[in-house]
C-alpha cells in the first residue's frame, strides 16, 4: 500500500480527518523550507504539499502569488524543491506531495521529472492546470514510478466528469471548494458544504476526498471534516505566517507549529 492511502486509512481508523498543509517551497529562502516542514509535521500535519514556484500561477490568489515571487527571487528551482522533499523524507514518514503547474514538468521532460521525483521519495503530484483528459501520458509515467496523481474536481465539475476523474486519480481527490483562486476567506460557504455532500456518494469507499481553497481556521477545518470530507487542505494561512515573520525565523517556526496544532485538533 502506498503512503498516502495508508495515511488516510490510519486516520479513518482513529476517526480523524487529514490535515494537509501547503507551503510554497523556497519561500522566503530555499534553506528555510525543510525546517518549516519540520514545524508543520511536528504540529501534526498528516500530509505536506510543497509547491514549486511558477512564474504565472493562474489558480492562485495574491498570497501565494507573492510567495511564488519571493521563492523565485531567492533562486528556487524545481530540482531544488524535489531535493528538499528528499531531505524531508529522510527524517519523516509523512507523505510529501508536490504541487506544480505543468510547464516546469514539461520543460524538464515528463520521464526525467518523475524519475527524479521518485528518487526523492515524492508520494504524489498535483498539477492544477492539467485537466484529466490531457493527462493520459502523465498518468502512465507517474504510475510506472508509483507516484500518486491527485486530480482536482471543482464546483463546475459534472457528476459524469467526476466519475472519470475518480477513475483516473490515485492518492486522494482534491476538491476545490469554491469558484475562485486560492486564498483565505472569512467563512466556509454553504455551497461548499453542499458540494461535499453532493460528491461524497461517488468518492466514498473509492478515494479519499480532501477539500482546499479558502480554508484557514480551525473552525473551517472542523466544518469540512464534519461535512464528510476525509481531509482539509490549508495553504495561504501558512504562507501568511511565513510572510509576516520573514525576519524572525524562530518566531515563524513557532507560529507555524502552534497553528498547525490548532488546525489538527479540529480534524
Amino acid at each position: 500500500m502506498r503512503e498516502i492511502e495508508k495515511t488516510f486509512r490510519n486516520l479513518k481508523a482513529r476517526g480523524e480527518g487529514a490535515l494537509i498543509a501547503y507551503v510554497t517551497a523556497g519561500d522566503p529562502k530555499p534553506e528555510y523550507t525543510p525546517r518549516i516542514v519540520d514545524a508543520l509535521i511536528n504540529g501534526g500535519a498528516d500530509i505536506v504539499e510543497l509547491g514549486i514556484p511558477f512564474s504565472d500561477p493562474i489558480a492562485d490568489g495574491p498570497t501565494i502569488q507573492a510567495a511564488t515571487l519571493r521563492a523565485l527571487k531567492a533562486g528556487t528551482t524545481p530540482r531544488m524543491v524535489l531535493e528538499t522533499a528528499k531531505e524531508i523524507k529522510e527524517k519523516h514518514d509523512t507523505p510529501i506531495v508536490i504541487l506544480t503547474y505543468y510547464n516546469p514538468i514539461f520543460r524538464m521532460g515528463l520521464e526525467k521529472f518523475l524519475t527524479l521525483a521518485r528518487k526523492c521519495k515524492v508520494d504524489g503530484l498535483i498539477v492544477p492546470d492539467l485537466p484529466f483528459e490531457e493527462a493520459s501520458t502523465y498518468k502512465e509515467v507517474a504510475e510506472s514510478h508509483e507516484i500518486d496523481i491527485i486530480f482536482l474536481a471543482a464546483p463546475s465539475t459534472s457528476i459524469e466528469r467526476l466519475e472519470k476523474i475518480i477513475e483516473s486519480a490515485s492518492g486522494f481527490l482534491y476538491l476545490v471548494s469554491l469558484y475562485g483562486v486560492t486564498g483565505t476567506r472569512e467563512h466556509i460557504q454553504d455551497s461548499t458544504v453542499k458540494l461535499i455532500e453532493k460528491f461524497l456518494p461517488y468518492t466514498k469507499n473509492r478515494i479519499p476526498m480532501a477539500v482546499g481553497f479558502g480554508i484557514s481556521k480551525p473552525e473551517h477545518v472542523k466544518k469540512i471534516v464534519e461535512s464528510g470530507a476525509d481531509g482539509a487542505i490549508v495553504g495561504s494561512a501558512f504562507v501568511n505566517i511565513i510572510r509576516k515573520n520573514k525576519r524572525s525565523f524562530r518566531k515563524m517556526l513557532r507560529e507555524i507549529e502552534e497553528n498547525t496544532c490548532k488546525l489538527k485538533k479540529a480534524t
Partner: protein
Amino acid sequence: MPEILIVALEELEDAYKKLEEDLEFKRALQNYLSKYAGRPTPLYYAENLTKKVGGPKIYLKREDLPHGGAHKINNTLGQALLARRMGKRRVIAETGAGQHGVATAMACAVLGLKAEIYMGTEDIKRQRLNVFRMKLLGADVHPVKSGSKTLKDAINEALRDWVTNVQTTYYLIGSVVGPHPYPMIVRDFQSVIGCEIKEQIQKEEGRLPNGLVACVGGGSNAMGTFYPFLENSEVRLYGVEAGGCSLESGKHAASLCAGSEGVFHGMLSYVLQDEWGQIQTTQSISAGLDYPGVGPELSFLKSIGRTEYVYATDDEALQAFQELSKLEGIIPALEPSHALAFAVKLAKTMSRDDILVVTLSGRGDKDVEVVADRLGVQI
C-alpha cells in the same frame, strides 16, 4: 487549464459550433462589421513606398481604418455577439496596447454588455490615451500590478477573474492564444482580413500575391491574414516578431524566433522561458507585441514549414513608423511598423513583377507619445 474552467470551455465550444448554421447571427455580425466597423477595409497600393524601395508592388491592407483604429474589432464584435447569445452579460478581457480593450469596450457598449478590462500598469503608463478611451466607452479598467505588469499578467488576472465568475462571465480573449476553442474562434473572426485581401488582390492584379507580411504578438492579425491563404502554397507567409533591443540581449518578445516549446495559458506553443520552464518577461517598444507566448496554430505552421518567422527590432520599427508616415501619409501603429520594417528588407530581395501585401493592423495615434519620447521630442 484549471478543472473549474473546463466546463465553460466546453460550453463555449458548443455555442460556437451552433453559430455555423445560425443565419441570424451571421447576418447580425455582417451588419455590424459593415455598418458599424466599416468593413471591408481597402487594400491600398503604396506607390510611394514601392517606388522608394524599388522592388515589388507593396500593398497595405488597411486594418488601421476599422472603427477603433485596429483589426481588433473584427473579433470583439463576433465574440460579444456570441456572449450575448450565451446569455452572459458581463464580459472580461485583457489588453496589452489597449486596442483590444478599446475594441471590447466598443462592442460591449453597442451590444449592451458590461465590459471589464484587465491591463498591466506598465501598459497603462505607455497607453494612457487608450485607458481613457475605454473608460469613456463605459468599461471598467482594472490595473494589474503582478509579474511583468504587461499583457501576460493581464491574461493571468483575467483568468483569475474568470475562475471566480465563470457562471456569469464571458472571457473575450483578444488574440489567437489561450485554451481551445479560443485560438480557433479568434482566427475565424479575424480571417475576414485574409478573405478580403484575396478578393481584392484578384480584382486589382488578377492574381495572388507572392508574399504576405504581418506582425506577430499573440498572432491574431497574422493568423487572420494567413489563414485563407494556407491552401495557396505559392504564397509565402511571413510573421514578424518584436526583436526589442536585439535577440542577443534577451530583451525582446520573439517567441517563435527565439523561444522553445512550452505549456502556457492553456496552450502548447512556443514560449520564452528559462531552463526551468519559468516564463520570461519580454521587452518591446510596442505593447501589443509584448507577450512571451504565441498562438499555437502559428507554432504548428512553423513546425510544418508553412510560415517563416523573422523579427524587427525596436529601432527598425521606429524607422518604418516614421518612413510610412512621411511617404504615404499614414501613421501606422508600432506593431505593424515591425511588419513594415521587415517588408522593406524583404522587398529588396524580390523582383519588380512580384506583389507583397503587408497587413497594417492598426493606426499609430496611440503610439505618438511613446515615439516622441524615444525620439527625444517634447510634445
